[in-house]
């Protein structure tokens, strides 16, 4: 493959510059030399960020970095209930026991100690968009803001009988990840594993298909002689169908499309006797439902029910969803477009632009939002044609890794974001393993470091 050898040369050329440049460093003025101009008469400009995931952590960090660079005195408070954030990115490796769960825990020390963000370990239970305050979990303490940034992630549409303490989604949060990992570690020989793929839009489009193939390979490698079933809300595998159908054929995974879950039996006190009941929808060429099959039930030892998504509860509680499942925003600033919700910005999976729901997207949306707010504070206008670049990479088997890249750009005709470039790895390879770790490491460090 001659392509890769060209890549080596380019990359080596980049590295060799590193030593050379160090010699010249230090000639330029330091950031700290700039004076911070107070932008409010009675103190710094108050930014409150809710949610310490990829969107929120990045926003908090960049407000401090760029605020200082722009000479603006910005006080940033990050509100997050967990002492550490558990990254869903690379969590598939935890499920298949190729990575310790704590390696994906990221605390907020660097945000506090290096960047000067104040941390409140708490949750926000209410927002007063007029008085510009948020209420904390005790129901009475309030925190005032000049701008409020929300990146609270997702919640799940309910399914009859679904108890997430027994039937994990493992799509958000450390406890869920631990639960699925444990259930698979205890998987009985000859057992059945069922995975439900949610209806779009959902977090990380290739993710559910990857999880099914990695779990199938993991169970196979551990001689579990398992039955693995994928129940997909989509008519067919929505992402890289050829790659995943080939993997599923290889691992004997049963795949069914157009599935609608009717209910789930989450099992007895010990979590045994679980089952999932569904129908297959019949659709015409436009995708309109014209009928459905009789109900079918699969008894399973482990069910990974990745339910249909909606924005986190806070978005609904605060009336930021405007009747839908996501928060509508202006993609130049990520400010809510709901009347009366000025000065509230929503990032990441919870917002409703067409941008793919991904951690890297949340990171980049945060930068667009921070830049726009600081520019506005400085008497300028937001940058007019922002880009959001997204990369995803994850194992699809015990050894092979896939990647996908997308670029989204603001379209000033539609006033929305649109995808202008997108591509998947031609095939999953072992060679992608190290680049995946390097990519993720940089993303983690840019967001939390």
């Amino acid at each position, binding site marked *: 493959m001659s392509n890769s050898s060209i890549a080596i040369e380019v990359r080596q050329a980049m590295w060799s510059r590193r030593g050379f440049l160090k010699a010249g460093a230090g000639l330029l003025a330091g950031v700290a030399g700039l004076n911070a101009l107070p932008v409010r008469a009675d103190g710094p400009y108050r930014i409150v960020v809710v949610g310490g995931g990829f969107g929120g952590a990045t926003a908090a960090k960049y407000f401090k970095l760029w605020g200082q660079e722009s000479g603006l005195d910005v006080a940033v408070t990050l509100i997050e209930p967990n002492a550490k954030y558990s990254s869903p990115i690379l969590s598939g490796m935890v499920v298949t026991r190729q990575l310790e769960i704590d390696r994906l825990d990221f605390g907020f020390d660097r945000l506090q100690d290096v960047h000067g963000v104040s941390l409140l370990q708490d949750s926000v239970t209410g927002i007063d968009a007029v008085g510009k305050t948020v209420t904390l979990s005790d129901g009475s303490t309030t925190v005032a803001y000049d701008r409020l940034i929300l990146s609270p992630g997702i919640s799940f549409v309910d399914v009859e009988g679904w108890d997430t303490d027994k039937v994990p989604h493992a799509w958000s949060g450390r406890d869920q990840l631990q639960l699925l990992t444990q259930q698979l570690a205890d998987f009985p020989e000859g057992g059945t594993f069922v995975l439900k793929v949610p209806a779009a839009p959902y977090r990380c489009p290739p993710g559910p298909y990857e999880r099914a193939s990695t779990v199938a390979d993991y169970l196979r490698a551990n001689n579990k002689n398992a039955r693995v079933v994928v129940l997909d809300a989509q008519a067919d595998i929505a992402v890289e169908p050829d790659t995943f159908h080939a993997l599923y054929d290889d691992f004997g995974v049963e795949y069914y499309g157009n599935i609608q879950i009717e209910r789930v039996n989450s099992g007895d006190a010990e979590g045994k006797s679980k089952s999932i009941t569904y129908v297959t929808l019949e659709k015409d060429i436009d995708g309109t439902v014209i009928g459905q099959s009789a109900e079918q039930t699969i008894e399973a030892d482990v069910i990974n029910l990745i339910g249909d998504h909606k924005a986190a509860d806070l978005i609904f509680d605060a009336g930021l969803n405007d009747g839908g499942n996501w928060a509508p925003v202006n993609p130049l600033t990520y400010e809510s477009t709901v009347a009366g919700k000025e000065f509230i910005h929503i990032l990441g999976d919870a917002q409703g632009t067409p941008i793919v729901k991904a951690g890297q997207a949340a990171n980049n949306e945060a930068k667009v939002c921070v830049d726009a707010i600081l520019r506005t504070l400085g008497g300028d206008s937001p940058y007019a044609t922002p880009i959001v670049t997204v990369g995803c990479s994850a194992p699809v088997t015990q050894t092979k890794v896939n990647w996908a*890249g997308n670029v989204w750009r603001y379209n000033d005709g539609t006033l929305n974001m649109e995808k202008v470039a997108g591509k998947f790895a031609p095939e999953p390879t072992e*060679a992608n393993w190290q680049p995946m770790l390097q990519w993720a490491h940089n993303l983690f460090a840019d967001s939390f470091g």
Partner: protein
Amino acid sequence: MNSNLKKRNMKLGRPAVLAVIGLSLSGCLDSSGSSNGDDEINSGIYFDISSVDYSAVSVDASAADLASGARLLAAQCAQCHGTYGVAVREWPDLWGSGRQIGNWMSQYQDVNYADNMMHVHALGYTDDEVNLLKTYYPKIAYSGGQ
């Protein structure tokens, strides 16, 4: 073809990490009974997020005068190439680079790089936007270790 790619990875990564991944994979394959707890995993994979020394980053004061979009577009590179283009692990830095960014972006736009995530990202940028990147990164210097 595979050996070529392997070679690239040995150079990109830390050989020690590769070796440990090999071990953990075979550990997985060998284990037959149920396994509980992280103590049985030994991935050797760590994501240290504290390696960039921000006190060693300097931003030239003239960066404030750059055209709207320069800082923001440059920051869209940072999630893979590090905040201010100071990358972690063995991965290309961008700080300090000007004309080279233009060269790299046009090289990566080439169809020959199709099996590379950077290809698709390079395709997303117009020439004007690449020019903005070229104005920003020369303003950044880094004197720390990594």
